């Protein structure tokens, strides 16, 4: 299955992926209106270190602890893609407790969780982080 991968030697730590992600999942059509002077809630996050930067998002694990631990059944696997149904989620954060990558996070209002769904559910249709990465450090491919 195609997944999002980050080549950390190319990652500039520019955080553009976070903005593209937040915009793609904002449901809005205008990027400025969606992002300017707003706290953003991206599903991909940059880790910055001493000369090393990389982006982290959901690995869509084959044996996902988040799905198995989900107390409601909101986290599901569909054709290998792990999604969260915000209607069923009660925001207990068990998935935040169990995801070894720290790749599930509270959504904007904290009442439910969110995670990378590869932009398959939003209008972008393909991972926005990949499309927007200026250094092609983030790729969407089979490995």
């Amino acid at each position: 299955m195609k997944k999002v991968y980050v080549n950390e030697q190319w990652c500039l730590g520019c955080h553009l992926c976070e903005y593209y992600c937040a915009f793609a999942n904002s449901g809005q059509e205008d990027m400025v209106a969606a992002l300017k002077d707003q706290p953003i809630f991206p599903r991909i996050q940059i880790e910055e270190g001493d000369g090393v930067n990389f982006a982290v998002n959901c690995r869509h694990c084959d044996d996902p602890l988040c799905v198995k631990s989900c107390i409601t059944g909101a986290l599901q696997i569909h054709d290998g893609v792990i999604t969260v149904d915000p209607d069923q989620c009660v925001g207990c954060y068990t998935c935040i407790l169990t995801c070894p990558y720290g790749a599930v996070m509270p959504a904007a209002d904290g009442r439910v969780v969110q995670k990378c769904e590869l932009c398959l559910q939003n209008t972008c249709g393909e991972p926005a982080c990949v499309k927007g990465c200026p250094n092609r450090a983030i790729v969407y491919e089979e490995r």
Partner: protein
Amino acid sequence: MKRKKVTRYVIIGNSAAAVGCVEGIRLADSKGSITLIASEPHHTYSRPLISYLLYGKTDEQRMKYRPDDFYMKNGVTALLGKTAVGIDPKSKKVLLDDGQTVEYDKLLVATGSSPFVPSIEGLDQVEQKTSFMTLDDARWLEHMVDADTRVLILGAGLIGLKCAEGLSATTAQITVVDLADRVLPSILDQAGGAMMKEHLERNQIPCILSDSVVKFEQNRAVLKSGRAIPFDVLVTAVGVRPNIQLVQQAGGEVRRGIVTDRVCRTSLPDVYAAGDCAESLDVTTGQEKVLALLPNAYMQGECAGIHMAGGEKPYDKAIPMNAIGFFGLHLLTAGSYDGDELVEQGEGFYKKLIVKDGMLNGFILIGNVKRAGIYTALIRNRTPLSEVDFALLKDHPQLMAYSKAKRKELLGGVRA
């Protein structure tokens, strides 16, 4: 050609462990017949959601742990509203309360636990009382409690406090009493307990601690301290007992819970056990104990199912862990608390990391719970802290703490 005999799987139970077992069996065997037996007449539902139901954050449809077509899609014959009353391991049969018997080739016992009702003078005279374990308990409370109802909850553990939060949407007259000196005593230390208690009390849930009810005078509870609390509805949430009777009576090995091995087998041939009725090995203490947590139940059930169907996937990384929140304040804990402590506390957050034998052994996080699973993974995987940059981790959970090679394995899709 002789047709291969179809395996008959039987599951007693209908919650997380049972569902995990169904999904585990179907990973390895699409043909075998699955019969599921449960006392409760309901479609599988998420038990922890009964407090969210009271709070109005979910409803009975969304509480369903799996979709309506779950049994059909997985070829499960669900005998709901029927109680298994005996197991005959010799003839490999389960006896039901209506006299019917169900034959099995492989059996999972996922009978959960039952509320422990304390023996307190006058308790039997209290008319309006319940425990808080089932959908029917929640429905009863929904029916009984209105804005004028005074509710007394015995027990400031996970169940009692979630019940209090749930009911707070309806009534402001709730009192919680616990013998322990802090709230959530099974998962919190003194400082964390004090923080949660303050938060609960700010949200109109007074908690009376280090005290207990010595007697009930109908609608009045008299405490050891001499204090008296009038109430209309009583909820008892002082603890649970694993339902081990079926396996015990059939001659299987039990302690507090049903004894199981690494693939969830009991000592009875072809009988497995999973969930709140069964013990598993807590890798943070090396002790066999009942880890009554939904994720544990699911994963034990799945492990049992896979093994029942002839597959192999041991469940050998069980740890205690809890995610719980009250009125927007989240609390995540994992592992056990024996070891050297690193504590950080500030406005609205509390963090304690416990290090033992060169490994992260446990943590308590209140308020700031971001990316906590990175800590949990270190505990589950028994990662030596010498292999990670612990100075970074102490600050906050991050994958930067792993070596470049390990990160490549974790993030790069490269298998080790």
